């Protein structure tokens, strides 16, 4: 199909979509309306399970099976990326030259590293009380690790970041989620049911299995993102095609 034909097809489709969508919008309850039957039930259920953060409760308790599905998509996406970006037979690794980093940037990145790490862990750990949780905190923690790449270069990051360990962590996080669910079965309840003592409302130990599932997701997301970025960094910085010749001399080098 030509680019022109495709654009026309899009315009016709977009016009039809816009018409239907706008009609639907005017039939929806107006923005900010007070009637939220599901929301109210979710809030009641979360409070009865002593979980202060209702969103964490929906994710890891009321709809825990759904989150298992989401987590599996994440796992599969990471796995797919690892397979796609593996080093093939006709590729070779080159050692990039050390990067030139301004001292100011280096010190800043090194000083921020522990802060960012702590903030990430804080966001994971407080998931059942305040805004946050395994998904968000996991990404922050994984990003924090890459401040080391900004402070020095990829080789420095490689030295302190054993990728196989994070690959195991990714799988272990997924497995821990399923095992927690099966534990509920052993305890004589349904898969992923909240069987642990619920604890005191709005404390770190409240929410029963929410804490465990939250931690499992935190581990999986942290490891998953680290592995993803490791594969991309490998490809962009180290791995080159065997025919590239002296191309690396310039391009493997890092700047700033």
């Amino acid at each position, binding site marked *: 199909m030509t680019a022109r034909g495709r654009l026309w097809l899009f315009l016709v489709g977009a016009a039809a979509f816009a018409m239907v969508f706008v009609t639907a919008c005017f039939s929806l309850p107006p923005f900010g309306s007070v009637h939220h039957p599901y929301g109210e039930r979710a809030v009641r259920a979360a409070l009865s399970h002593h979980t202060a953060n209702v969103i964490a409760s929906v994710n890891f308790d009321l709809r825990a099976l759904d989150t298992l599905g989401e987590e599996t998509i994440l796992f599969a996406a990471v796995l797919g990326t690892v397979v796609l970006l593996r080093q093939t037979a006709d590729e070779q690794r080159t050692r990039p030259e050390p*990067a*030139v980093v*301004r001292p*100011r*940037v280096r010190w*800043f*990145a090194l000083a*921020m590293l522990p*802060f*960012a790490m702590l*903030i990430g862990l804080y*966001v994971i750990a407080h998931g059942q009380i*305040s*805004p*946050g949780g395994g998904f*968000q905190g996991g990404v*922050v923690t994984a*990003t*924090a690790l*890459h*401040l080391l790449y*900004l402070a020095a270069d990829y080789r420095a990051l490689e030295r302190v970041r054993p990728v196989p360990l994070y690959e195991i962590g990714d799988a272990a996080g997924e497995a821990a989620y399923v095992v927690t669910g099966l534990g509920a079965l052993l305890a004589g309840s349904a898969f992923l049911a909240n069987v642990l003592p619920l604890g005191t409302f709005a404390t770190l130990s409240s929410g029963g299995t929410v804490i465990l599932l939250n931690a499992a997701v935190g581990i999986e997301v942290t490891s998953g993102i680290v592995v993803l970025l490791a594969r991309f960094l490998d490809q962009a910085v180290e791995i080159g095609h065997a025919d590239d010749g002296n191309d690396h001399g*310039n*391009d493997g080098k*890092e*700047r*700033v």
Partner: protein
Amino acid sequence: MRADDGWLAVALVPLLALVPVLWRVSRGAPEDRLIAQNLSSLLGGLALLPAAQGFGRPAYVDVALVLSVLGPTGTLIYARFLGVLPGSRLVRRTALLGVPAIVLPLCVAAGPGRAMAKLLLIGALLIAGSVVTGAGGGRGRKAAADGGRTA
């Protein structure tokens, strides 16, 4: 939870300032785009802090906390790939004037305690991030190949 319109009006100021910043991010010269991206995360933090107070929810401050760490990180990532870290007086001035102007009244409103410590930490992180990413020092080494082409 009654929203406090005064604080929300304060949050509106950095929010409106983001409109010209968006223009620069999408239409400016290459270095201006990076400066605008840097400025946007600073202004975002400055909008989030009074908004948290205005909504009467100190827990919302966590969003600003995460932004104060990841914002400069994002800017440094771009700087490394583009091969430039342009200095910007605008970013430094906005940080040095704007952050105390918003954080100190918020501290007074919060009163001594954990909330205040958190606000001061966020303020310090915002200033540190902006000073480091906005101080310039000219071009590092002008990127030779891919970085230079994209910049």
